[in-house]
């Protein structure tokens, strides 16, 4: 692929689209919202094409593991590739079976694995609760207040207890969040401008 097709053309498309969306948001342009909406649909279509690249990556990586009989990997590879083709064929030719497999196998496994999140939040919380510094002490106090204020029994323990947690969340917590969001949003705006100016090219795979 030529350098123009690999780096210059995507950059031109990116710059034109970025400035179009920016100006169309602020300036009334006849037919502008329709074009912006169409751009959004193109984005979905183009990004879905990339799924093919993902499938190729899976086939290449796990196919090699199977061929080379890599320890602890090859059996896993067979299951992944077989599952992928089963779902692909069922989705194309046997829709009811696709739904059956999706609802009864994929969703079940998905939900079971999601449960990890709950357990890991507790183990992370346990470590956070170890007081090693003033910041950790403040975090511990805020966490206990939030936990107690959300517990149904908190009002019975002490009347104002639920209000303390709500105040921590809505006043100091919200203030910190808003500061964080504004700062991050400014960083995102600057990153978008850097990309639109062609300075940041990571999304094109970097520059030599």
């Amino acid at each position: 692929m030529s350098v123009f097709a690999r780096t210059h053309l995507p950059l031109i498309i990116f710059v034109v689209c970025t400035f179009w969306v920016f100006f169309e948001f602020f300036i009334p342009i006849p037919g502008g919202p329709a074009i912006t909406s169409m751009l959004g649909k193109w984005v979905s279509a183009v990004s879905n094409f990339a799924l093919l690249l993902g499938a190729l990556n899976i086939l290449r990586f796990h196919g090699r593991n199977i061929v080379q009989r890599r320890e602890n990997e090859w059996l896993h590879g067979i299951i992944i590739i077989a599952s992928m083709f089963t779902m692909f064929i069922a989705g194309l030719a046997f829709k009811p079976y696709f739904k059956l497999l999706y609802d009864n196998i994929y969703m079940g496994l998905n939900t079971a694995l999601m449960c990890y999140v709950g357990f890991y939040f507790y183990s992370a919380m346990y470590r956070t609760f170890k007081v090693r510094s003033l910041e950790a002490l403040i975090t511990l106090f805020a966490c206990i207040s939030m936990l107690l204020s959300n517990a149904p029994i908190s009002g019975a323990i002490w009347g104002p207890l639920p209000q303390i947690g709500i105040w921590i969340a809505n006043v100091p917590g919200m203030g910190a969040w808003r500061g964080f969001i504004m700062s991050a949003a400014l960083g995102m705006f600057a990153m978008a401008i850097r990309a639109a100016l062609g300075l940041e090219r990571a999304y094109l795979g970097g520059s030599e």
Partner: protein
Amino acid sequence: MIVYAGKIIGFVLGLGFFAALLYGTKYLRNREIRPIPGLIAIEEAVGRAVEMGRPVHDCPGGGGLTDYTAQQTIAAIAIIGYVAKLCAEKGAQYRVSINVAHTLPAVEEIIRTNYRKAGKIEQYSPDIVRFLPDQVSLFSYDMGMFEREKIAANILVGAYFWEAIVLAEYGGSVGALQIGGTARQSQLPAFVASCDYLIIGDEMFAAAAKVSEDRAQIGSIAGQDICRAILVGLMVIGLIAALAGTKVIADFLKI
């Protein structure tokens, strides 16, 4: 009306910020970005991985390039490039797992480019990048890989969703040195609790500019500080006005 009613000040501020960033890229190129502890820790983590003979794992999170997480994903890809270069130079094994298909070409390309820059293209393998189709398959595969390969470093910088806590906690359980970073406020507590070093919020964008070693990008961060000063100024004036019982600043911003 040239600009929609209610968006005039937003438009003017947007153009002003654009001008400030442009000014930064041209005239503030000689400024330096302060040391970012999370970024410094990446070099330490790669060195540790080399000494231990174990891999470095990197993940740009569940964000993509087509939505509001795009800027974070771009920053994450830039940092992946930096880590790839360090791994190539020091001879560390590198593993990258991603679950957004359209980021795959950019991630593969930036790693290949940085291995080439380091003069170690022969060490590059397409198997460095592993695509997992969704968040659950990403973390379930990664958990197995962390356990089998006992990763030495876990770099989790990008737009993270609920996979953040699982990857960070499991990485910690295998003894990896962990660097977490995101501009998604809902996932930051997970990294605060589980990671050894943090790249918080817009530090991530500054880190991406810093690793590029491009003076124009570093200048744009200085330009960003001008914008930040304007915003802080507006907030202080707005606060004083509100305390004085007038909504003049709030009304002005709604023009």
